[in-house]
């Protein structure tokens, strides 16, 4: 029996628009489990990014509850949410969103410094280790504007895991990358998951979805399907692709 890290029930999100309300999420229930690599797929505008932002505490749900460690994220104070984003959750954006005036190394260490549990020396050592792992240690003193998109995204991954988060959120992490960089990033995420990192990723890229052990399909603000897969194995990628494709077709993707 898997242990749920995060459990959401009846999550709704709506936005004011033109004097009325646009309901993006309606009554979404979802559990995220320890060690899982979960992917949310869906058409554009289906609300997958909105769901991810609500689950990660980056944005507040309009209604429902999102329980993490016995606490409801929806009701958390801004300070507590900031602490959660810093220590417990990691986040990877599609557009990388590195702080443009910090070097790659500094982008990685800053959230580490925010976390009070580790000393500066420990943070620096961990950052060096991660940058090495991401194969960008040789350009660690470069500014984001001086490196490629793939290198930026690797840096963003290193930043996201510097505080060893219990849950890593990735919002279309390969959306802005070319094929080569996409594979590199996906390999890194798969590697992290294999080492025990729980991941929730939003994507509409089939190749990215293949890395997941669990795929949820979102439509019109609600989860309408779920596919469970065995752990990813490169040798079985073809058959995995066929299976996922068939399932997605059944979802009218």
């Amino acid at each position, binding site marked *: 029996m898997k242990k749920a890290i995060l459990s959401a029930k009846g999550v709704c999100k709506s936005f004011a628009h033109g004097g009325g309300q646009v309901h993006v999420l309606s009554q979404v229930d979802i559990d995220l489990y320890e060690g899982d690599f979960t992917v949310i797929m869906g058409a554009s505008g289906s609300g997958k990014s909105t769901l991810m932002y609500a689950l990660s505490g980056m944005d507040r749900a309009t209604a429902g509850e999102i329980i993490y460690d016995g606490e409801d994220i929806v009701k958390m104070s801004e300070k507590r949410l900031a602490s959660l984003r810093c220590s417990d959750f990691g986040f990877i954006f599609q557009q990388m969103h590195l702080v443009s005036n910090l070097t790659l190394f500094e982008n990685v260490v800053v959230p580490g*410094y*925010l976390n009070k549990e580790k000393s500066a020396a420990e943070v620096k050592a961990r950052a060096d280790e991660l940058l090495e792992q991401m194969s960008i240690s040789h350009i660690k003193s470069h500014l984001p504007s001086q490196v490629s998109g793939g290198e930026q995204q690797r840096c963003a991954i290193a930043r996201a895991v510097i505080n060893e988060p219990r849950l890593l959120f990735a919002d279309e992490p390969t959306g802005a990358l070319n094929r080569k960089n996409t594979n590199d990033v996906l390999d890194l995420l798969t590697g992290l998951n294999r080492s025990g990192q729980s991941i929730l990723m939003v994507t509409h890229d089939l190749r990215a979805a293949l890395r997941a052990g669990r795929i949820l399909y979102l439509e019109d603000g609600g989860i309408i399907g779920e596919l469970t897969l065995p752990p990813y194995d490169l040798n079985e990628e073809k058959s995995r692709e066929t299976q996922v494709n068939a399932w997605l077709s059944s979802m009218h993707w």
Partner: protein
Amino acid sequence: MEIAALLKANIKHKKGSFISVLILAFIIVTTAAASFGVRENYIDAYERVQEAADLGDAGCIIAERLLTDELMEQVKSSSLVERVNVYDAIDRMGDTYINGNRDSNSWFFEEMRDGLKLVNPEYDGLEAEIPPLAPGEIYLPTGLRAKLECDIGDTVSAQFAGGVHEFTIKGFVEEPSCGAMMMGWKQVFLCREDWQALREAVAPYETDTQTSFFKIVYAFKTDKEMSDAKFIRELNLETGIVSKSVGALTKDQSTNYTGLFLNIVLYVVIGFVLVLFAIVLVVIAHGIKTETEMDFVNLGILKAQGFTSGRLTRVIMLRYVLAELIGVVLGIIASIPLERILSSVFKGITGIIPDKSIALLDAALLVIGMLALSALVVFLATRRLSKISPVRAISGGRKEIYFNSRINAPITKRGLNFSVAYRAFSSSVKRYLGILFITALLTYFAVTVNVMGAMTDSRAALEAMGAGIEDLGINYMNEEAVDHFDEFEEIVQKYTDIRVKRYTVHVYYSLNGENIITQINMYPETIPGLLKGKLPLMDNELIITEAVAGALDLKIGDKVTVEGKKLKAEYIVSGIYQTMNDAGYSMAMGIEAAKRVGSRYVGYLGMCLEDASKREAIAAELREKFGDIVEVYTFDYDEEMSGDVTIIAARAFRIVIYAFAGVFALVAVMMVCSAAFAQERTDLGICKAIGFTSGRLRAQFTLRFFIISLAGAVLGAIAGSLFSESLLNLIFGMFGLVRVYTVNTAMTYISAAAFICICVSVFAFIASRKVKRVEIRELVTE
């Protein structure tokens, strides 16, 4: 049409910068138009008063017995002179008191004459008619009202030879020749009966050495193109009338002295307005640069639709010009009440009730200048629009903003907020140059105002500039006092040592034909304010001010002729000094030198005491023993200066300048902060996403502006320490003070820098409240 539509949208979306420029223009126009109005209204009123009073181009106050028929005839028949007006006057012998306030300056009591205007009881206008005086009543010049804090119905007690006479103030008149608060002579007016009774009462005490009867001779020059200074000099060379007078004053000098304080303050205000306008231009240039960066894509789209760079420039220019125009209109409206308030402050000092018109021509010129310069800045700042290619813009091809910087410092865990804030600053210094420049300018001006305040408010500075300020003064009432000189000093030294002995007398001597007030010193080594050369320690030396040197074309080492009432002698100019006497048109020499032209003794012993607290006890003993031959004054600098109208006005002026600097800092910072905030919105979102709280981000934002303002304030303070005195020298130089001495402490600079830093930081913190509204979901790109 399309420009109008774009302009409307532009104003709607850039209302922050629109309102900011509007407010800045409003402040500038309000201040400048009010200042111009004050000056113009004062000048108009003063010219009107001068014309009505018919006082001539030069006036001499001469002892009645010295103005012989022969001399009078010489003056009247001089080709230099068109006509002459002569008035009889009686000088008082001692001090004059009103409501316990003493005035030791000369008061010349005259019979009421035509041409004077009576100020209404509200002191904001003039009466149509001037009622005749009844016996016992007196009209005073308006400048005395503020100086002696008196009003209609108060009693004037004046000490004359033979006794004290009292009069009731019936009203205040505009007296243009020496009615201003700061001028040393005053002409006051009685009815014929009182004046004749006074003359009869004083007459028995009239001697050859001590006179109370004077004639005031006003001469009108034939050649209206000739300067007043040249006229009086040539008249004296021809007739000697000025050399025989106790004092002379030209119309130009009256004008200069009367408006001295007003002019100095207004020049400083105009200087401040220029600084503020420079800031507006910086803000506009900065705003355009930022909006070009922020709207890069939109501008590219507009270009793709056929908008030319010229059209886009016109839209931006129209927006700023429109904002300025609205600010200008509101500013001119607001300047009307401000002009009234400022005028009411200055009328107490000048003694002239100003007119109430608006300086439309000056304001119009100001507005045209402002708009033209702003348009030029907009034109220059929008040149980069031509470099935007539609394709490059739409594909987001703008240049990266951040670069490696040599002044970067490492990000550290300890002091994370500071290091991140500093990095934001160091990696895009150019973006902050505007606010750095603005902070430096505001600090520079605040320092200048502090320096000016320290100059007018500091005893040491006033002394350095030649204003003798003593703790104790002994004024001889008659020649008998000379024989008791040693006893006066003995009494003082019983209580405390005398730190500085400034034993002087002021008389008018003719220097190469020019009548100049001369400070005669028993100890010439104590003469303050020497600028060049050496003090006049020898009996053939004298020193002159630069104003005198300039007017008479003299330099150190030149031989000059000084003429007293009876004697004449040659001297050498040994130095150049400055003094506040006669607005800096003065000379000084030792008593031994003065004896050569007839002065025999000094009449005033001014003493700076080692222990100033003993002054009252000393004064009491001196009065007890020598009250019949000397007058004894004590002077508590702090107390006296706290009630001085000019000091109060200077302090109020400092507060106003600081308040304006604060408002300007507010608007400029809000504008720059908003732009920075818009540019950094994404970074703020990222920081929030990785765990920074809004509080921390606001602290960083504030810290960053604090760093910039600190750097700007330091630059401004350094500039202030280097150039403030020069600026004040330039302004004060126009009015006779050659060198401004200031007694600046660290606080002169620190208080100005701290004020600007705090303003900028507080306003940046307020502007950063928007950080709370940054949602991380804004980072989502579908």
